[in-house]
């Protein structure tokens, strides 16, 4: 039991943080702990949470992906134009995922075979995808879709909004992939020690490329949720979303050094950010203070994480 606790300490650290946050907000405002508001928060968190899954994979390989926000915008406008052109919704969704994945795979190839540092490659892609989105739409948002498509964000199953269901499904699958498959094990191995991974016969280039492709595809999925939610795809959507995703991942205990991290932690990280934003809105706190508080929480979360790590060793 003790070993189990110690082993999962970091997870519990962030979970305790989330619970403390919820309790404080519950005391401060009567509007926080209602079913409607909790659904509201999970729905608002879903986009960042989905992007953060890809980010977690990438960061575990000791990489970084700065292009997720731009890829989301690009995938969103391509998807939207496909729907507008009368492409059936399921195929349009595949196109959206495909565009995201293609951008991610390009990142992966540049990093693996072009030997570019992930920071540079994805920084470039951030600009390229943004430009592509603007060029593709001539800067105009594409809006007004059929109910079928909007149902993806506005509909609900058994009272749970669809974006939340999508988010949960993504986390379950990602958890499975990361803990039970070869891809997951190699993701950790590459981040832990890339040289050793190569020497032990892992096709590092191939798996890294897959990880970036996956991250891009999840940005495409986030684009689907965002476009359905706003009933519009904007070429300027998602600016700075990469930082939210990185923050969720880091709050969730994934090390920027690579080699360690858990998908469940990322979900808690994303929820902490969502709960904070929601709570500060409910309290009517000035927007200036909100940014300061959110920033401080990121720092505090990492401090907690480091304190726990020290204790463990």
């Amino acid at each position, binding site marked *: 039991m003790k070993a189990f606790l110690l082993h999962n300490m970091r997870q519990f650290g962030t979970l305790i943080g989330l619970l403390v946050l919820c309790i404080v907000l519950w005391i401060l405002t009567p509007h926080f702990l209602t079913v409607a508001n909790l659904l509201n928060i999970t729905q608002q968190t879903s986009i960042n949470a989905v992007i953060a899954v890809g980010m977690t994979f990438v960061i575990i390989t000791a990489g970084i992906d700065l292009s997720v926000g731009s890829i989301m915008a690009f995938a969103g406008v391509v998807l939207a134009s496909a729907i507008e052109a009368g492409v059936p919704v399921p195929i349009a969704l595949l196109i959206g995922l495909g565009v995201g994945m293609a951008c991610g795979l390009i990142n992966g190839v540049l990093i693996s075979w072009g030997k570019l540092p992930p920071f540079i490659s994805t920084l470039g892609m951030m600009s390229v995808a943004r430009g592509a989105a603007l060029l593709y739409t001539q800067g105009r948002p594409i809006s007004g879709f059929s109910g079928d498509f909007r149902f993806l964000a506005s509909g609900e199953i058994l009272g749970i909004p669809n974006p939340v269901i999508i988010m949960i499904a993504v986390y379950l699958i990602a958890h499975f992939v990361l803990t039970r498959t070869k891809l997951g094990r190699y993701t950790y191995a590459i981040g832990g020690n890339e040289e050793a991974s190569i020497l032990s016969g892992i096709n590092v280039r191939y798996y890294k490329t897959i990880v970036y492709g996956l991250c891009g595809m999840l940005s495409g999925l986030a684009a689907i949720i965002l476009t359905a939610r706003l009933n*519009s795809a904007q070429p300027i959507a998602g600016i700075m979303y990469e930082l939210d995703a990185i923050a969720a991942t880091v709050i969730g205990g994934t090390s920027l050094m690579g080699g360690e991290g858990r998908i469940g932690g990322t979900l808690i990280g994303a929820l902490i950010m969502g709960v904070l934003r929601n709570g500060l809105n409910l309290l009517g*706190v000035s927007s200036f203070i909100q940014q300061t508080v959110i920033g401080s929480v990121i720092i505090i979360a990492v401090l907690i994480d480091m304190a726990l790590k020290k204790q463990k060793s």
Partner: protein
Amino acid sequence: MRQVLYICLILVTMLAAAGCQRGEKNSESRPTVALVMKTLNNPFFIDMQAGAESIADSMGINLLVQAAEREIDVEKQMQIIENLIQIKVDVICLTPSGAREIIPAIVKANKADIPVIIVDSRIDSALLAEAGGRIESFIGSDNFDGGRIAGEYIISKLSGAGHVAILEGIPGHETGDMRLAGFHKALESAPGIRVLSSQTANWERDQGFNVFQNMLQSYPDIRALFSCNDMMALGAIEAIAAAGKTDDIIVVGFDAVEDAREAIRQGTLAASVAQHPFEMGKLAIISARSLIDGRDIPAFLPVKIDLITVSNVGPARQ
């Protein structure tokens, strides 16, 4: 483990402190009106907030001001509205970050029986009707008109002939697009005016400097510049000064922020189109009060728009 406790303690204190600064919210009998703006990182919206605050108390209204961090982040603005619906504010006054994107949020407010007043930027009324949403009123001035006024000023200054350049806002941004369209509309009446170059500087001062410097390289005979906001215009006048052409190029900005007024006094900026955000904020609160009292309000409440030049800029604000 002790460290963790300490850190949690700091977190709690911080949140509690943040919670306290929301002011006397316990005056429950007063109706709450939320003013949701695009951002607070822009003097225009600070003025709007000041206008709303100047009158909220005397109207017996509990004012809640919220804004997204970035002007273009519609998703965050939507989250704010969803959250305000949770606390059941009485009226939402909104400066929409996206003319179409924000419509689902308006529909949600409608469903919760919270009336919505739109301030400053229009929303797409056809799409709103299609989505089954409604707004009570639009309070604002016409960006199209502002662009037209700027165009007419430049035409008269150039006596109807000459080369002009344009600095655009972020593409796809309703406000900038309308200003641009209004400007082009005015130019239709002056065939002697030629637009040599029209590029975006993304609303930003430093980009205004760089983009206009590049324009001057390619087209040294530019005689006038229309910039879709003051920030870009202020950047551009620095580029003009660096090229030693301050007296040769007429620059017209938009928004008449304090820095721009100062530049007008100094003669580096010729004019700036002024909207009156303070007035908008005030009118928003007055309209909200009327709604709460069950009175009808007009579907469109125009706020004046005019051109500030050296003749009407007035002395510096103390």
